[in-house]
């Protein structure tokens, strides 16, 4: 350490930040992260991981219990359902549906919500009033009803489920991002951008938006769980992904008739939903505390 003190001038702060980052990483939620990795991995590579089909019934094997229970075998480690289909296989493919719906709804709903939030906060006035009133009405309406109505009218499929959930999702993004923008637009750099002759669009896209990315990231992670639960609820009610495509919600529903004889048929998919949602929520909490502690009060 033979450096002069002037050369070190910038270092302590830098070191401090490094320490903070290390500290945040040390407190990273490892178990939730592991669960997320497993779900994403099995969902992505499902066809390579299992020899079974998701839809082909095999009546000889119907309602086989999981491997740890009497009568179970490694052939179907988590048992089979009433049609003899391997539960582990359907679970992995069901994870695919959940992940796909989550990615698309968050991209669409989050995108629209962010755009509305940016415009609403930046321009203010009447535009703001209309946007925020709509957002509040959306949040205070049991939108699952609307999703059901849409799906019954147009027919259940992945695209309709995505549209229905995205129609609900935008409101929260609009609200939070607008709040961010209201604070940001009073700052000097926005005034300077305006003086420098930037167009409104340029200010929105290149000056305001990048400053909301942290918040957006946290909000997106915290809502994955919510989207999974809504999709599962819709599928449970028969207004989601239509059978025979496996979805976690409809798998729980399939098992309802067998609660007295084959507990695993609905218990295991439900556990999968719970673990995945808890994992994403805990991961989101950590991300929020690390990136954006002031969001604590918002969500």
């Amino acid at each position, binding site marked *: 350490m033979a450096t002069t003190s002037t050369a070190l001038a910038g270092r302590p702060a830098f070191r401090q930040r490094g320490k903070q980052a290390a500290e945040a990483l040390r407190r990273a939620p490892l178990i939730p992260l592991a669960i997320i990795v497993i779900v994403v991995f099995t969902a992505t590579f499902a066809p390579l991981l299992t020899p079974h089909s998701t839809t082909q019934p095999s009546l000889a094997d119907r309602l086989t219990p999981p491997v740890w229970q009497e009568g179970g075998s490694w052939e179907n480690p988590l048992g089979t359902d009433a049609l003899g289909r391997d539960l582990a296989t359907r679970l992995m493919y069901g994870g695919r549906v959940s992940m796909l719906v989550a990615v698309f709804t968050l991209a669409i709903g989050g995108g629209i919500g962010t755009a509305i939030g940016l415009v609403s906060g930046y321009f203010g006035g009447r535009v703001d009033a209309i946007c925020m009133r709509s957002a509040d009405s959306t949040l*205070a309406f049991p939108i699952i*009803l*609307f999703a059901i*109505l849409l799906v019954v009218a147009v027919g259940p499929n992945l695209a309709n489920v995505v549209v229905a959930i995205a129609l609900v999702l935008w409101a929260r993004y609009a609200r939070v991002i607008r709040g961010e923008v209201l604070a940001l637009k009073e700052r000097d750099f926005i005034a300077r951008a305006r003086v420098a002759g930037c167009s409104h669009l340029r200010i929105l896209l290149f000056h305001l938006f990048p400053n909301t990315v942290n918040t957006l990231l946290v909000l997106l992670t915290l809502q994955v*769980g919510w989207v999974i639960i809504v999709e599962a609820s819709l599928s449970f*009610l028969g207004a989601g992904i239509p059978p025979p495509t496996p979805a976690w*919600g409809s798998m729980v529903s399939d098992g*309802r008739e067998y609660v007295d004889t084959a507990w695993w048929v609905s218990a295991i998919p439900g556990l999968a*939903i719970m673990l995945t949602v808890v994992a994403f929520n805990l991961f989101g909490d950590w991300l929020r505390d690390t990136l954006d502690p002031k969001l604590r009060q918002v969500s």
Partner: protein
Amino acid sequence: MQRYIVMRAGQSIIALIILSMIIFALGRFTGDPIILLLPQEASQETEDAIRAHYGLDQPWPIQYWKFISNAARFEFGVSIKSKRPVMDLIGPKVMNSLRLGLAGMAITLIIGIPLGVLAAVKRDTFFDGGAKLIAILGQSLPQFWVGIMLIQFFTVQLDLLPAAGTGGFTHYIMPAFTLGWWVAAAVMRLLRSSMLDALDGEYIKMARIKGLPEYKIVWKHTFKNALIPVLTFAGTYLATFITGAILVETVFAWPGLGRLVYDSIIWRDFPVLQTLVMMIAAVVITVNLAVDIAYAYIDPRIRYN
């Protein structure tokens, strides 16, 4: 104040009109209702006659007007599945849902309020940790699954509680609990943080200096103020409750409106579903209006904004 009420009521009416337009438009997507009414060998003339009889040959705006004026007279058409007027199906179920809803709300208040206060007062203790666990589970457990697992345990394993339908007090326990605790988790979390904020207030310090007993500080001075932010979310909670009721009534075969929603999904019974959505929306919008007005009455800052 009057101006605020008129403005806010106007917004509610606009929201209802927009909603009715969306429902009407979605109804057009379900396919031509004439096909369901006609025998297969019907001629073109009979089809035209029936179309004219039901007013389906009219332009859309006129059809929409008929739809709205019928709705105002509680005439919502005939169920596709049972061929009976929709209101005959809905009427008898209203009370069942209301009873279950009230039981669920009671559970929410019984669990949510004491735990939220306790978690804030005994911050960072065992109670706080327990409350946090309940909140995390409340946000992560799918309600329909909790219901099925309760049936699995209390009905199949222990044979203690009835799994389905209405009846005596015991029929309420599982559905009301499943319905109530979801919102309880949300109420608890919010109450905890608003209690913590309120406990930081200067007037609490003053109350302490005055030597007031702790229970008075907590319940009289802090709790009352901490409740205001919780009440703001009353509309959102109601929405969550209704969503929950559809799932819970389906799981426990409760003969209420939620179960009717489920049946109309299974039978693709659009006339029943659109009526239910319209009615629930009207209730939700009215409650939200009432909450906002009450809120503006309590807090003058709102009505002048």
